[in-house]
């Protein structure tokens, strides 16, 4: 969809130049799949981030580092990343739009957009960190990046890091939508790490599209901690999630409907995880 109110197109020579332009009100563009659908109220310039060396996936002891302009398809086609965390990243990415969209949409653009997302819950459940540039290079937990509203300030997302899983651990994702091509009415990502004594050492229960941005259901995580992941624990966590999520009505579903779905998705994710754990 051509955008009319565009007064200039900047190909920055480096990230500092790109950031200055963004600070002065220009719109950063990666895949552009979201930018191109929104007509700005007044003429602005676009800053093309895909000309910067921000693309690629590497793996080290710290986990996977993924550059901001890496496409969702490139993530899906990276065999080690696709296999990571029981394949939860790949399972989720296959449900994001279409192959055509994923060939263009980037992880940095997706995370900077910070709404309507199947990707964010999964990355939150895996304790991902995000890297960005706001005059200096910064890094911090993805959860804090959204909780502190940092994503709304002028910055350039430069990449993410997904830490290794500490086994035994397992992860799962569920998206509830009319068809998988549609945006989610609700989604859920969970990850459980197990201690030597068989109890839960770390729990992540993340619910998104409430329709607020995805966030941990802290009370459910606290409940799961330190006990076995048995049917009683799963059922209690699901009940807590249904009650605690900040559910609201919007054009896709009512709050009441979302709470009912939340209980089901949390139960399904945790049951799938329980089935995968030793």
């Amino acid at each position, binding site marked *: *969809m*051509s*955008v*009319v*109110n*565009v*007064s*200039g*197109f900047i*190909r920055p020579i480096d990230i500092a130049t790109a950031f200055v332009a963004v600070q002065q009100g220009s719109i950063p*563009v990666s*895949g*552009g*799949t979201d*930018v*191109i*659908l929104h007509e700005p109220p007044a003429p602005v*310039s*676009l800053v*093309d981030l*895909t000309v910067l060396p921000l693309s690629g996936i590497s793996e080290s002891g710290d986990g996977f580092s993924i550059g901001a302009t890496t496409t969702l*398809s490139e993530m899906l*086609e990276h065999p080690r990343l696709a296999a990571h965390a029981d394949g939860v990243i790949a399972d989720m990415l*296959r449900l994001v*739009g*279409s*192959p*055509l*969209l994923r*060939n*263009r949409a980037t992880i940095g653009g997706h995370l900077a957009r910070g709404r309507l997302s199947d990707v964010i819950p999964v990355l939150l459940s895996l304790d991902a960190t995000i890297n960005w540039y706001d005059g200096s290079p910064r890094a911090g937990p993805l959860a804090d990046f959204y909780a502190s509203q940092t994503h709304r300030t002028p910055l350039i997302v430069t990449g993410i890091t997904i830490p290794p899983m500490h086994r035994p651990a397992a992860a799962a994702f569920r998206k509830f939508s009319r068809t*998988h*091509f549609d945006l989610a009415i609700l989604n859920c990502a969970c990850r459980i790490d197990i201690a030597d004594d068989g109890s839960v050492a770390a729990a992540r229960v993340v619910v998104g599209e409430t329709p607020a941005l995805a966030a941990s259901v802290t009370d459910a995580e606290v409940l799961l901690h330190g006990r076995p992941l048995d049917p009683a624990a799963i059922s209690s966590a699901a009940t807590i999630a249904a009650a605690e999520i900040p559910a609201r009505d919007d054009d896709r579903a009512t709050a009441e409907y979302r709470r009912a779905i939340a209980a089901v998705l949390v139960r399904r994710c945790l049951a799938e995880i329980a089935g995968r754990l030793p």
Partner: protein
Amino acid sequence: MNLRFTVDGVPTTVVIAAGESLMDVLRRIGKTSVKNGCDRGDCGSCAVLVDGRAVNACLVFAGQVDGTAVGTAEGLAHDGELHPLQSAAVEGGAVQCGFCTPGMLMLAVDLLSRNPEPDEAEVRSALSGSFCRCTGYVKPIEAILAAAGTLLERRS
């Protein structure tokens, strides 16, 4: 601003508006096989290749494809001979009104370049996001599988 790229192998320079979509630019220079079905990424009828990967041309700013190679369905036939994907679509009854066909062909080129021997499930998932209101998808899927076979035979 100037956009310099190759379109179906031909070096091309066009003056574009900074906010123009690749779909609008391609149609403006005569590549009307690139169909505008929805102009918002839902239907896939505008699919083209950018450096070998199929994308929704309506979701791409033309300014971003400077220096790339863009491929449309109009570049598939050579010296009057149809590409195996085109022949398979014609012979297999995969074209009815034809509105979706150019986009599906470009998706299929991308798929077969990475996965020369897809199974039916892989073709189906590659086609998700590419809408056809006529054929019910069965014939296009069969055509892509048949073309994959022809291309493999030619290579061996």
